C-alpha cells in the first residue's frame, strides 16, 4: 500500500520529472499536471508557477486547468485518500449506508482531510465497477462488495 507521502520528492524535482517525461507543449499540460499531482499528492502553488514558466503558459491558465479536473488537487490531502463511489448503481446497492459508516469512522465530511493528516475523504466519479458495488478506492487499492461490517477492518489496514 503506497501512502501519498512516501514517494515525496521536492517540488522542483517532481516538475522536472514530468517535463522530462512529456513534451514541453501546452497540449501536454494535463498529463504533466497529473504526473506532478501523483508524485506530490497534490499541486502546490509553487509547482503551478514552475510549470507555467517552463511551458510558457500563463499562470492563470495553469491554475484554471488544475482546479477544473477532479483528479487534480490544489489542496494538500491526507496520507491516505478514500475515494468512495456514490453514483446510482452503488447507491442502489446500499452505498448510502457505507458512506455514512465512512464518515462516522473518519469523522470527516466529503472533501475534508483529518487534522492529523491521516485521511482524506472524497467521492469519485463512477469507476465502472458497478457489478461489485458499493465500491471504494483507498490509495489505488480497490474494495468492492462493501458492507458496513467490512469498513473498520479495511480502514484498519492503513497506518
Amino acid at each position, binding site marked *: 500500500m503506497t501512502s501519498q507521502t512516501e514517494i515525496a520528492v521536492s517540488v522542483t524535482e517532481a516538475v522536472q520529472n514530468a517535463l522530462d517525461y512529456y513534451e514541453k*507543449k*501546452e*497540449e*501536454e*499540460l*494535463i*498529463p504533466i*499536471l*497529473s504526473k506532478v499531482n501523483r508524485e506530490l499528492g497534490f499541486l502546490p502553488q509553487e509547482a503551478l508557477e514552475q510549470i507555467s514558466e517552463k511551458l510558457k503558459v500563463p499562470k492563470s*491558465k495553469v491554475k*484554471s*486547468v488544475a482546479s*477544473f*479536473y*477532479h*483528479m*487534480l488537487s490544489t489542496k494538500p490531502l491526507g496520507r491516505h485518500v478514500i475515494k468512495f463511489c456514490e*453514483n*446510482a*448503481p452503488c*447507491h*442502489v446497492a446500499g452505498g448510502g449506508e457505507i458512506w455514512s459508516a465512512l464518515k462516522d469512522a473518519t469523522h470527516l465530511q466529503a472533501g475534508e482531510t483529518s487534522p492529523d493528516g491521516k485521511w482524506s475523504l472524497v467521492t*469519485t*466519479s*463512477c*469507476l*465502472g*465497477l*458497478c*457489478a*461489485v*458495488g458499493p*465500491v471504494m478506492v483507498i490509495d489505488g*487499492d*480497490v*474494495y*468492492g*462488495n462493501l458492507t458496513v461490517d467490512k469498513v473498520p477492518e479495511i480502514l484498519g489496514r492503513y497506518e
Partner: protein
Amino acid sequence: MAYFRSHVLVSNDPAILKEGGAEVKDALLNEIRKNKLSGEVEIIDTPRISDGKQGPEIMVYPEGYHYIGLSAADIPFLVEEQFLKGRAVEKFLAPTPREKAQELRAPTPKEVRVVLRNCGKINPENIEEYIAENGYVALAKVLTECTPDDVLAIIKASGLRGRGGAGFPTWLKWDLTKKATGSPKYLICNADEGDPGAFMNRSVLESDPHSVIEGMIIAAYTIGASQGFVYCRAEYPIAVKTLNIAIEQARNYGLLGKNIFGTDFSFDMEVRKGAGAFVCGEETALISSIEGKRGEPYPKPPFPATQGVFGKPTNINNVETYANIPQIIFRGPEWFASMGTEKSKGTKTFAMAGDVKQTGLIEVPFGITLREIVYDVGGGIKDDKGFKAIQTGGPMGGCLPSMYLDLPVDYESLTSAGSMMGSGGMVVMDEDTCMVDIARFFMEFTQAESCGKCVPCRVGTKRILEILTRICDGKGKDGDIETLEMLCSQTIENSLCGLGKGAANPVISTLKHFRSEYEAHIYDKKCPAKTCKALIHYEINPEKCVGCTMCARNCPVNAITGSPKQTHVINPDICIRCGICKQVCNYEAVVVT
C-alpha cells in the same frame, strides 16, 4: 502463434487481487512451471470472470470449468487433478455458473454478441489471438480492395449509427470529415465513458482492444486522417494499460505506422488520459481537454468535422461504434442490417444495474422490448418485488414506468417516450424506490458535473436541486411543481451542450409519470416509497414486539425505551431514522409509516 491445450483465465480485477487473487495466480504459475506444463497451459489475465463475490476464481478452457473461492494452498491439488489427471475438481466448481450474476455471463437466447463477441474469450494482450478470430481481415480488405468511397457505401448500407447516444449516422459523420478541407485530419475515439453505471466500453477496451483499433484504422483510411487519439478516462487504469499494449503490438505488426499493408496509407494513434471530468464525454469538451485546456464545451457550429482538435477536421466516434466496423466489413452490411429495427440497425450493449436479478453487461439487437431486457435477459426484479421504473440513458436519461415495458428499444422510441438511448446505462428500480429521491439523486450528479460555463446549466441545475432537496426534506410547498417545470424547460432550451440539455430529463420524466409521488411529498408530507427520512416514522408494533431489547441495545441515539419482555417504544423526537432497529429486529415488529 504458440498453441496451448488449455487456457486458464485468471481474474486480475483489483478487488479480487486484494482477496488473495494475486497469491492464487503466483501459485498457479509456480505449479504449472513445476509440473513442466508451461508449454501446454497458458495463463491469461482477464478483467473479471463473475461478479467477484466468490473470492479468487479461474476459468479453464476448453472445458469451461469455473473454479471459485480458491486460495493459494488449493492450487497444487487443483493443477494435479485438472492438468495432469485431466479431471474436474468438483469441490471448487462454481455451483450453477450460468445462473449466477456475472459482469459478462453466457448470453441468454435473446442476446446477440457482436461487439462483445471476443470478450472473455481471447487474451486481450495478445494480438495473435485477435487475428485468429479473423482480426484485421477487414482492414486488409479495405486497404487493398476498397476506395474510401467504397467503405462509406458499406457503412451506409449497414445503417450503423453512433453508439455514444445521439445516434447520428456514422457514414454521414465520416463523409463530412472526409469532405472537409484542412490538413492534417484527426480521428478521436471517445472512451470517456462517464455515465454512472455504464461500463460497456471499459469491458471492450479491456478485453478486446484490437477491435477498436482496427475500426479506427479503417475510419482513418476512409476520412484521410493520419493521427488518432483514444481519449480514455483516468478512472479506467486497466483499460489504458491494455490499450497501450495493444497499440504497441499493432505497431510491431505494421498495422499502425507508415505504409500499412505496404500501401501509401499511414496512420498512428495514442492514448490520452482524462483527469476526472464528466463533461469531457461531450465531444467539444473532449477536444478542449485533448488540447490541454479546461474541459469546457464550446458552441456548435463549427462542428468537429470541420474544426475539431487543433482547429483541424476531426472525426469523433464512441468505442462501441468503432468496434462494430470490422465486423460490418468482414461479414457484410446486409448481415448487420438484418438485425434491429427499420431505423436502428445492429445490436447495442447495455450495462444493467439496480434491482434486477442479473446485473451486468448485455448485448441485444435493437427492437427488443424493455420487458424482454428486464425479465428474460435480466431474470426479473430482485426478491420478486414489483417493477417500478427503468432509467435509460444515464444521468440525463428519463425514468420510464411499467406502461413502457413493451416499448421496442431503439433511438427514436426511447426519445419519444421521454427518455433516451444514451451510451447504454440501464438502472432498474423496484417498487420500494422513491422517484422524487431518484430525481434529486441524478440532479445532484449533473449539478456537480456542470462545468459552469453557461448560466442556464450552472444556475438551473442548482435551483432545481434546491427545490428537490427541499421536497425530500418535507419542506415542499405549493407551487414547487410548477416552478420545477418552468426551470426544467428553461434549462433544456438554453443550455450550451448535451449535459445541460439533458440535465432535467430525470425530473421531467418523473414529474410526468410519478406526479402523485411529488404531490404526496409536498401536500401530504408523506413519502409513498418510505425512503425520504424526513417524511417517515419508525414505530414498534406492540402485537409483534416480544421485548427482546435488541432494538434498544442497537439504537445509536438511545431513542428506544422499554424493559425486557415489555413492549418497546420509539421516541420520534430523538429517532434519527437510521433504520438499524428494523434491521436487527427478529420479529418484524418495527414498522415504517
